[in-house]
């Protein structure tokens, strides 16, 4: 006698199996229409390979497996494809899914099929492929594709092959009657499986002790095969795969693992029969044994049912009485789910349709409070604490639920069965599992969108930072130019130190706070707009500078005197300082004088008082105009101004010459003066013309300077600075052009030589050389024009 292990918990619900065992298996026949869901198994749904209107034969594949964990679907009888559409499928939710609908023709015409004469000659791979092509999925309830389970890896040697004939759910007798009537097929299937799996220890068939007839039949059939029939006490849920493994071997399948992890492969006995028929006769899985039972059925019965047969068809056959029945269950009373629609078809996993009366399975009474009696924990086959999980489920404490191994719950229903407060515990666990899965998916989703969002923000920030950097660089350059312009614009260059201080202040301000930046901007503005200050302001500023410099000079002199008295080492340094200060003072004085000089004629507007000396007056006006206009003008303005100046000077020259002629005719005493005036005006005109020419050259060299004009004083200063720089650059440009002209001249000379040589030699290249010479000459002309 082999050792039998016990599982924790378990219950003993009323078995109610005898009702459906009164009669042998009956062929349910061919209904008018078969509905074949594409997903009758765990894994990817099959994909249809027939079209509406096609005639199909019995056993013909009508949908092929899609992927590894999948199974094909075959036509259970001959007929025509009526539709490929969504129909209600057997599912707890009562949902619809893709189905192939076949209008049967009653001929039951088989497609050509052939079994294997001697399967022992075939390799494991070939056999597994045949099983896969036969569309066999676990027939015990879960519907896991059999071929996937049989594709064991060589690095995980299988010790034990177990066939599950437990059938622990009340009411269901499909396996029981299969054992009674087709024990030989089960054993034959077991032998094929044993050949495929090659368990190195044993092959077992586990059966609960409430099926003595089936056990006897199996034992008889298994004689001499070495397959052991293991009988153990009836207890729900011994038939769960993990529970059966524990009962028969004492091993536990690790959480999250597979039976093969502990060297075990487990298959249902119905699946074994299907495998036998697939290998021996080449028949795909197109029918199964289904129990129709419950007190609402007059004739409870096991049927050999074609897959796709509507439940209503079977209920009609069994004398179903709708009046007494308030719930229709697909499966058993412990783990089955209610059906809403009797049009749903029998599929590969449908082992039972239960139609109980109200008295038999009354509607659940209202749930009372949980008193934590612990009966559920006593009943739990996987040693969970259902009462704790119930509290956590109600409070939606998902983390605690997972810590209490919610996901190890097999939803066998033992806890709900024993609960004295009628709490639908399993429902809470199902809902919590769904919530947690949903939350996990949501979490993944939100993490992805968070990543996306962060990436986008980072990208935008980077772009913004780059823009900002560019902007800052432009500002910096503008400020530097403004400062340079301010320097350049100063009529005297003596204030370099002052300017440097200003620049350094501006720089400091840049790196400091906004207020300082504002100050710096203001200073920059002042520097840039230095020329804009009114003449009075300039005078004042210069006077102040002068006063300051004088004071410093006095102080420096005092220090020097002191140092000389004390014969200090610093005396030399002081002496230098004094001389420098003196220099500076002198330069400031000079500047002030120059400024006052320009200022004086400007202060006296039109020199109408000075009518005695028109030439002088004209000069004075011109000076005043120029002083007033200052350097603060755009290039266009300058051009216009210069042109105007030339025009007026020319007029004046004409006028002066007329006056001179008149004076000479009248022998005026002022003739000498007039002559001088004419000469001066002539000189001035020349000067003005020259200036205009220079200016236009500048313009030609750099057009961009003119294009930018702005109201902003700083901007204006920048423009001016640019103009000034361009003017400077233009000077070097002229040098460059000169160099260019020289090199061009050289090249032209060489080209000419070559051309002459080529012509002398009568070379074909002469024309080309002539062309390039012409081009060089053009360039030279252009450069010369530019230079002038």
């Amino acid at each position, binding site marked *: 006698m082999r050792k039998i292990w016990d599982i924790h918990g378990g219950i003993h619900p009323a078995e109610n199996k005898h009702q459906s065992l009164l009669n042998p298996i009956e062929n349910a026949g061919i209904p008018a229409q078969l509905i074949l869901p594409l997903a009758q198994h765990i894994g990817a749904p099959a994909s249809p390979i027939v079209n509406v209107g096609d005639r199909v034969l019995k056993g013909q594949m009508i949908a092929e497996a899609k992927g590894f964990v999948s199974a094909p679907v075959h036509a259970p009888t001959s007929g025509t494809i009526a539709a490929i559409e969504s129909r209600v499928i057997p599912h707890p939710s009562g949902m619809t899914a893709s189905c192939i609908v076949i209008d049967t023709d009653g001929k039951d015409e088989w497609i050509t099929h052939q079994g294997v004469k001697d399967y022992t000659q075939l390799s494991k791979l070939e056999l597994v492929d045949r099983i896969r092509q036969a569309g066999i999925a676990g027939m015990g309830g879960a519907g896991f594709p059999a071929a996937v389970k049989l594709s064991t890896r060589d690095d995980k040697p299988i010790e034990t092959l177990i066939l599950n004939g437990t059938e622990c759910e009340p009411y269901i007798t499909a396996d029981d009657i299969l054992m009674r009537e087709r024990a030989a097929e089960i054993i034959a299937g077991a032998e094929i499986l044993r050949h495929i799996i090659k368990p190195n220890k044993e092959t077992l068939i586990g059966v609960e002790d409430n099926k003595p007839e089936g056990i006897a039949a199996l034992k008889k059939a298994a004689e001499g095969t070495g397959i052991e029939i293991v009988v153990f006490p009836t207890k729900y849920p011994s038939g769960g795969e993990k529970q059966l493994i524990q009962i028969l071997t004492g091993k536990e399948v690790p959480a999250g693992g597979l039976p093969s992890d502990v060297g075990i492969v487990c298959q249902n006995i119905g699946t074994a029969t299907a495998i036998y028929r697939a290998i021996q006769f080449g028949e795909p899985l197109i029918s199964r044994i289904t129990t129709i039972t419950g007190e609402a059925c007059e004739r409870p019965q096991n049927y050999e049912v074609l897959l796709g047969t509507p439940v209503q068809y079977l209920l009609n056959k069994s004398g179903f009485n709708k009046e007494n029945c308030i719930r229709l269950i697909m499966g058993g009373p412990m783990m089955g789910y209610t059906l809403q629609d009797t049009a749903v078809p029998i599929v590969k996993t449908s082992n039972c349709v239960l139609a109980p009366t109200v008295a038999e399975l009354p509607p659940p009474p209202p749930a009372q409070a949980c008193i934590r*009696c612990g009966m559920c924990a006593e009943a739990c086959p996987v040693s969970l604490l259902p009462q704790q999980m119930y509290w956590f489920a109600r409070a939606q404490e998902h983390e605690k639920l997972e810590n209490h191994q919610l996901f190890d719950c097999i939803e066998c229903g033992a806890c709900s069965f*024993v609960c004295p*407060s009628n709490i639908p515990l399993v429902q809470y666990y199902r809902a919590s599992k769904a919530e947690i899965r949903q939350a996990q998916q949501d979490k993944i989703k939100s993490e992805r969108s968070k990543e996306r969002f962060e990436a986008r923000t980072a990208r935008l920030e980077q772009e913004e930072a780059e823009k900002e950097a560019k902007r800052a660089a432009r500002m910096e350059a503008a400020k530097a130019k403004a400062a340079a312009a301010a320097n350049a614009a100063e009529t005297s260059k003596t204030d370099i130190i002052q300017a440097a201080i200003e620049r350094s202040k501006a720089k400091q301000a840049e790196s400091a706070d906004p207020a300082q930046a504002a100050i710096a901007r203001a200073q920059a503005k002042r520097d840039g707009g230095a020329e804009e200050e009114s003449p009075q302001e300039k005078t004042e500023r210069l006077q102040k500078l002068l006063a300051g410099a004088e004071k410093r000079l006095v102080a420096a002199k005092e220090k020097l005197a002191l140092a000389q008295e004390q014969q200090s080492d610093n005396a030399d340094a002081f002496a230098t300082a004094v001389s420098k200060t003196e220099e500076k003072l002198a330069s400031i004085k000079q500047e002030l004088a120059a400024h006052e000089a320009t200022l004086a004629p400007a202060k006296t507007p039109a020199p109408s008082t000075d009518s005695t000396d028109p030439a002088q007056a004209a000069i004075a006006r011109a000076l005043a105009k120029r002083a007033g206009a200052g350097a603060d003008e755009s290039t266009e303005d300058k051009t216009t101004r210069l042109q105007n100046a030339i025009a007026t000077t020319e007029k004046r020259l004409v006028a002066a010459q007329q006056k001179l002629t008149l004076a000479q005719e009248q022998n005026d005493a002022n003739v000498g003066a007039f002559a001088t005036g004419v000469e001066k005006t002539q000189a001035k005109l020349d000067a003005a013309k020259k200036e205009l020419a220079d200016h236009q050259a500048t313009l030609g060299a750099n057009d961009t300077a003119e294009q930018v004009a702005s109201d902003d004083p700083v901007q204006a200063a920048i423009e001016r600075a640019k103009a000034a720089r361009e003017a400077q650059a233009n000077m070097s440009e002229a040098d460059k052009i000169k160099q260019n002209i020289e090199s061009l001249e050289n090249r032209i000379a060489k080209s000419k030589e070559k051309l002459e040589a080529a012509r002398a030699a009568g070379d074909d290249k002469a024309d080309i050389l002539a062309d390039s010479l012409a081009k060089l000459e053009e360039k030279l002309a252009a450069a010369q024009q530019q230079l002038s």
Partner: protein
Amino acid sequence: MGFLKVSSPHAHGPMSTARVMRLVLLATIPGLFSLTWFFGFGTLVNVLWASITALAFEALALKLRKRPIAFYLNDYSALVTAFLLGIALPPGSPFWLIMIGTGFAILICKQLYGGMGYNPFNPAMAAYVMLLISFPVQMTTWFAPQGSFAGDLLGPIDALRYCFGFGRDTVDAITMATPLDVLKQNNSLLIEDMWQESAQFGQFSGIGWEWANIGFLLGGIYLLYRRVFTWHAPLSMLASLTLLSALFYDGGSSASGGSPLFHLLSGGTMLGAFFIVTDPVTSAVSNRGRLIYGALIGVLIYIIRVWGNYPDAVAFSVLLMNFAAPFIDHYTQPRTYGHKLKDQQGGKS
């Protein structure tokens, strides 16, 4: 089609909460009988009045909470609380004392926490402790048991008059210290001498007390047989109490804490072991947890009885361990199929 849409399982077992409670009530009969036999009708009046007031308070609370009254009264949980408190109180307690007790138990200890299943403390024991602290005189006045004095016990009518206070003076009632009290006061006599000196000692402990305890033990065995609770908590409590009393028995000297048998059959030991410690709501949930929970209650009972200030200690010990139950639960989660115990507890938060 009009078929019911429900989640599995569709079958349900025969057990119901009301049935569990009725079984508990039924199981108190042998103990109640012994108490009445030896101490008169006082206990029965206690239980009767406690039941009436408890149901009234429960109904009131349910009405205030807008819950269906009949549905909840039918679970018998208030009656169980009333029975346990009525049994625990001294026979012939005044009506107001009982009423305060049931009011505290039902309104504050049970309904205020959310009703049945939500109370962290055993309501009967919490009420008992509250009364013991608030009304020490009434709570420690026990009638002398039959056989310890020459006279009659309280009859049913006398017991009612005594309880409700009219003509209380006319009723002749003899009170006596309980055996646990006597033992506590003793510091000069050998146990054997003490037994001779005091009239209230019987075969193993006090007259009446030993039979009351045996009665509750029988009731407890019946409940175990009916699988109302598991053996873990009561057995571990009795075992730890036995072990400690054997350790400190000291051969029956004057410093002895009393024999194991004396402790097992004195005071509320058996009532506590089978009717209080087994209260599922307030105890630990796993079997391993219940072993720890029961054992620690046994230890506390001995410590408080022998070295503490109170002669009996079941109520205090149970309340203290009620506090610890969630903590015990946290560390005694059973090993789930396919898991290693270490991994499982490592994964706890």
